[in-house]
């Protein structure tokens, strides 16, 4: 009797030990990687403190960040403040951000992209080897864009529409992280100076800036309307000329036109309506698309959830953009037709990041396919002497991947044509302003684009926007898509469009080997 019970007890005991062994395996095998990369892991802290952290290079091998170990403490130097937000910082005292954070385990050498080598390293208890990163960003374009932004608050982001590679992403004002990424004792003063700046230099406006888009939103509205068949490029709205002066009454709310200046209202179809940027025309278009379809198209372009710069397990996160009120990580349904009509021309609850709007332009440029954006191009062995350029040994290459189709190529071609008119058409040229014309100095190159002036409540001066791409003429493959915002600076044509034009022209010159 007792013997039988003892056998049963032995079974239960083995079962209990198996449960503990299961818990052990969970932490030591399944969850080990996640634990190993947590920032407060003493191993991470120790590795960061003493390891020669990997270097970061631009697309052409120009050194951007590197570390040296002085008296057992790793000190990091950042060579170009134009990259401050995208690269981020790796401070022993204040933590890590940006690419430094997302690729931290590889830069410090705690992880290896090859699981087999990682296992071998672990078995042999080898010291971690730090690795270097190459970005997709070209330092020449980044510096050019930063210089164009100057002392303005705002952002410039440029993407290769075909690949999703980020060519430049600048957030202004910038900062220099070198002061607080070296000796932890001396870090505080340098940190306090940046942290105390009322203009929030730490915010990466490209990814974390939340803005009302204004008229640049009309590009998305046009894309949704043409692809869904709600309108054709020839569609007109009979009441529109009259409403230009009287206002367009939607369910008790009157949509007003912005000042048209010398332009006389007429029965416009898509091209002239986009050229004069008619709010009333696009309010009509939005209502034709309808609330559900509008939300659907917004989501296809990347709205309503966060976007990743990069694929797989390492990426930078871009805050979600919204076309309606945010609701648990998604866009809420439009409250009523008034909200939809206003959202269609970029007001109401619409809230966007510059990167999302660059992606809209890139999608049109890419024939209706949303490219997967990415900012780190490859992982390399640690360069023996970073100042002399990166190691030729590429350990892992990253790519955006195929992206996904948002609208048909036919609809994209129609939007593209309307966007060319919006900056080069007879009226569009007046709106886009003389500044954007600098681009047309390159013979035979057309630009597609749209300016925006985002009204802000509380009497604040409006934001100036521009999105566009080039070359846009028939048969050409666009090589750059861009979004520019200058905070609180007034009309889009005055500030943002010239910068957008200049940056695109610079890129075409660089590509041509200039």
């Amino acid at each position: 009797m007792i013997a039988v019970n003892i056998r049963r007890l032995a079974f239960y005991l083995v079962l209990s030990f198996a449960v503990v062994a299961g818990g052990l395996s969970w932490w030591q095998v399944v969850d080990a990687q996640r634990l190993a990369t947590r920032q407060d892991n003493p191993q991470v802290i120790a590795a960061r403190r003493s390891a020669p952290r990997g270097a970061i290079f631009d697309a052409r091998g120009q050194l951007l960040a590197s570390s040296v170990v002085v008296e057992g403490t790793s000190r990091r130097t950042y060579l170009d403040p134009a990259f401050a937000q995208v690269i981020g910082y790796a401070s022993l005292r204040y933590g890590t951000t940006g690419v430094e954070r997302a690729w931290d385990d590889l830069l410090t050498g705690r992880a290896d992209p090859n699981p087999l080598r990682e296992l071998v390293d672990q078995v042999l208890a080898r010291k971690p080897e730090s690795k270097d990163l190459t970005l997709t960003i070209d330092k020449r374009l980044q510096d050019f864009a930063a210089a164009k932004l100057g002392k303005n608050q705002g952002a410039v982001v440029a993407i290769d529409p075909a690949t999703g590679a980020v060519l430049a992403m600048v957030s202004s004002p910038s900062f220099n992280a070198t002061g607080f990424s070296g000796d932890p004792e001396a870090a505080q003063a340098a940190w306090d100076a940046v942290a105390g700046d009322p203009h929030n230099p730490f915010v990466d406006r490209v990814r974390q800036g939340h803005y009302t888009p204004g008229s640049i939103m009309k590009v998305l509205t046009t894309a949704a309307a043409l692809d869904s068949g709600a309108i054709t490029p020839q569609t007109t709205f009979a009441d529109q000329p009259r409403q230009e002066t009287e206002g367009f009454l939607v369910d008790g709310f009157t949509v007003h036109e912005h000042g048209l200046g010398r332009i006389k209202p007429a029965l416009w179809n898509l091209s002239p309506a986009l050229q004069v940027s008619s709010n009333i025309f696009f309010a009509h278009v939005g209502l034709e698309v309808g609330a559900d379809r509008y939300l659907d198209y917004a989501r296809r372009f990347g709205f309503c959830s966060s976007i990743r710069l990069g694929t797989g397990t390492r990426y930078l996160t871009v805050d979600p953009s919204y076309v309606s009120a945010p609701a648990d990580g998604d866009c809420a349904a439009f409250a009523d037709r008034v909200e939809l009509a206003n959202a269609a021309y970029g007001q109401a609850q619409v809230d966007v990041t510059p990167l999302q709007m660059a992606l809209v332009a890139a999608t049109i440029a890419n024939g209706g396919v949303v490219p997967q954006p990415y900012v780190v191009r490859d992982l390399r062995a640690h360069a023996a002497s970073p100042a002399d350029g990166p190691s030729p040994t590429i350990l892992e290459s990253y790519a955006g991947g195929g992206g996904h189709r948002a609208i048909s190529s036919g609809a994209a071609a129609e939007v593209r044509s309307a966007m060319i008119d919006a900056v080069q058409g007879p009226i569009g040229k007046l709106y886009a302003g003389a500044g954007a014309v600098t681009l047309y100095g390159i013979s035979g190159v057309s630009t597609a684009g749209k300016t925006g002036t985002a009204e802000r409540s509380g009497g604040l001066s409006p934001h100036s926007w521009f999105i566009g791409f080039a070359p846009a003429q028939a048969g050409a493959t666009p090589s750059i898509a861009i979004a520019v915002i200058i905070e609180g600076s007034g009309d889009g044509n005055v500030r943002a469009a010239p910068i957008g034009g200049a940056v695109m022209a610079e890129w075409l010159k660089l590509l041509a080997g200039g």
Partner: protein
Amino acid sequence: MHAVPRPVEMRMLLPLVVLVPLGFAVTHIAQSGALDPGPLGLAIAYVGLMLGAHLALRLTGQRGDQLLLPAVATIGGVGMVMLNRLPQGGLGIDLPGVHLGMATTQLLWFAIGVSAMVAVAVGFRDDGFLRHYKYTWALAGALLLVLTFLFGREVNGARLWLYLGPIGFQPGEAIKLVLVIFIAGYLAEKRSLLAGASARLGPLRLPPLPYLLPMLAIFVIVMLIVVISRDLGTALLFLGIFLTMLFIATGRRSYVLIGLLLFVAGSFVAYQLYEHVRVRVDNWIDPFADPSGTGYQTVQALYAFGRGGIFGEGLGQGLPTISGHLPIPALPTDFIFAAVAEELGLIGALALLALVLVVVFRGLRTAMLARDDFSAMLAVGLTISLGLQTLIIAAGNVKVIPLTWITFPFVSYGGSSLLTSFVVIGLLLAISHRSALDSEAREQGS
């Protein structure tokens, strides 16, 4: 008392002659970077102690189980290597004029524990004084409990210590032994009565109430420990021992289930009443909610497991210190399992658990071969006290259950625990010695 050969024990102990000094040398090399074995005095003394115990058992004609000592010596060897490689400051004892470091102190306790084991294994020839005076033992245990509540010192909001001069003692360890002896005595006597059912309470079939009452009294005392000492780990251990022995005696799973349900209910009350219990449970649910505050040690232990991975960081290679301090203050006592798992990996930690299972299985085997019910119940109770204690602390370390402050037998730093654990092994050896004698007598008689 004729000397008997113990060949299996001898053979199984021999690898330790190499392994323990090697462990000391490897950790020394890893930490100092110098290619010399470092001071091996403690390692040699440890191995000598175990071989000495083997010789003593052999010379005194002890015929008990031959796998118990080698298994325990190996588990203890892992513990000594770990304790020796940790920073020695802080723990240890101050004797007049001399401070003994942590590893030295532990070795001293090993010497005392092993001596006690041999003394019990050899000297314990008649269990009458345990069996017949079970109520006296129970009374002594209760008295010790009362003394602790009255004069004990509190550590970590729960742990209760009695101090005799400079040396602290945890009465819980002694009470654990007394509890096992009393329950074994009582159950062996009343087993048939408890197993039969004659009273009914709703759907439950219960044994006659008068026999149930002392059992209930034990249960109430255990729950009182929960409420008064606020030491959930010891309470869970005591209750586990009690319920397991009740199960062995009666074969009724329902008793165990009811007991566990009542314990969960009691723990819920403790959760409502005591802040530190609440903190413990909350940390169990999500230690990362406050990773630098109350969840700190748990989180750091998880990091240690994660760093160890499958193969471990290697002896002496893990446990990064932050400006000279261990990341886990309670590492030598409550988190020694995490340290072993970090440096020896999943493989090493599983091997350590397997060694404990070896001890448990040899203990259960001893119980099955025991010559009477009392010896069998005693052997089961003693075995389960070691097995459950290991389960509770290991499960707490890996966050399967909330963490409780109890020691990992033979591995954690701490004298009371070591001494008690060795007395347990000594008793098991004595029980199996007597059944070996019996079976020899039977063979000769036939």
